[in-house]
């Protein structure tokens, strides 16, 4: 039988849940912003606009959370001790993007991570023994579901052009 890791332990403290939520929203807002910057830097405005809209949505969550926790003393948790293990679920891995990615590809990637965030909060709600943690985790899960719904709507509106990877007429070649 494998040894239980910190990630397997339920969250039974409101402070710990809020510390996780703050970190997740911070990471997500930062990452979407970074990806939007990258795509703008490479003149991929359509893909950049997807990430920028998501950055704004995450920042809105973040502001709400910061207001909620303004008077609270939250525990400090090192990045490697969060219950999710590794990067926070809502932050797209940097190496999963490409300057040639399509609009649809960007939407699907974000959709995957928003679903992971929803999954995280759902698990917290299911595992906790604390009723207030359960209530708040369910609320956060519902908020992530809203992002999932947006992205599914955007995905369904994608036309044929949005599905095409960016065709680079001047690709980076090794010296000839």
């Amino acid at each position, binding site marked *: 039988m494998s040894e239980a890791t910190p990630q397997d332990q339920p969250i039974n403290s409101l402070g710990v849940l809020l510390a996780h939520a703050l970190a997740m929203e911070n990471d997500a807002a*930062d990452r979407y912003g970074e990806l939007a910057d*990258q795509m703008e830097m490479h003149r991929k405005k359509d893909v950049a606009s997807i990430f920028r809209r998501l950055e704004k949505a995450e920042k809105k969550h973040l502001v709400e959370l910061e207001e909620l926790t303004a008077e609270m003393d939250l525990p400090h948790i090192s*990045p*490697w001790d969060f219950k999710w293990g590794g990067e926070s679920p809502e932050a797209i891995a*940097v*190496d999963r993007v490409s300057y040639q990615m399509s609009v649809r590809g960007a939407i699907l990637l974000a959709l995957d991570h928003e679903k992971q965030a929803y999954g995280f909060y759902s698990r917290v709600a299911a595992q906790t023994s604390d009723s207030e943690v359960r209530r708040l985790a369910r609320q956060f899960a519902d908020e992530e579901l809203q992002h999932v719904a947006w992205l599914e709507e955007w995905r369904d509106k994608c036309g044929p052009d949005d599905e095409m990877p960016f065709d680079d007429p001047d690709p980076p070649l*090794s010296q000839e």
Partner: protein
Amino acid sequence: MESCVQKKKYLAKDYKSELKPIWCPGCGDYTVLNAITRALAEMALPPEEVAVVSGIGCSSRIPAYTSVYGFHGVHGRALPVATGLKLARPDLTVLVTGGDGDGFSIGGNHFLHACRRNVDLTYIVMDNQVYGMTKGQASPTTAPDWEGSKLTPEGTGINPFQPLVVGLASGANFIARVSASDPVNMAQIIVEAVRHPGFSLVQVLSPCVTFRPEQAVWRDTVRTAVVDYTDDAARAARRLMTDDGFNVGKVLYKGSRPPYRPEFEVSEGSIGELEARFAL
């Protein structure tokens, strides 16, 4: 584990500058920048007490993207600059960043002697086995049969440089390898590297998605090393003899050699008296 109740003093973003990186989307160097800023935030180091020194290359752009003191130096000369800085200002936390070409070819000799001197520095090498900034030539760590460059159409035919082996043999006091696909683990290792006295070498497997797109599989190729660190250099060397380059995520070696910290005499004498000390 969560510690006693306290507000964090710094966030990772506090260590980032306003400049937007121009690396290719998907580049591992973004992850390294994120890991460095996370590590600095975790250590709550005031930005004005940290310096990042680099040479030349894609990864050497990191100082510009941080809000701490930075020095974007000459190709291959990041380590001597950082050594001088640390000796002159031992109160600063000095990080050195760069790539495999900058560090092991142009700066190869400095690498050997930086390990040997064991000044309290943390050297983070983003190893993508290629010169990316100059559009994809074989570097010291490139496999001998890589045929992706027109300069070496049949591969270099030369065995690649082994940074950790050479670092260990030359006297590095802390050695680790991490993957750009796991920035959180990387941040944790960087914290350990900074806190360990002496010269710390952190090799990052950082894919070049543009000139080595086949490195995308590194995310799935790397594996977490199964053994914890040793303080025995001979044992670390034996582990490296059977290492395929994809064991990551843990510290390999932590030595106990004291860092080089020369005591400077504050001379109140004249320049003539100073000259006399060195006169033949």
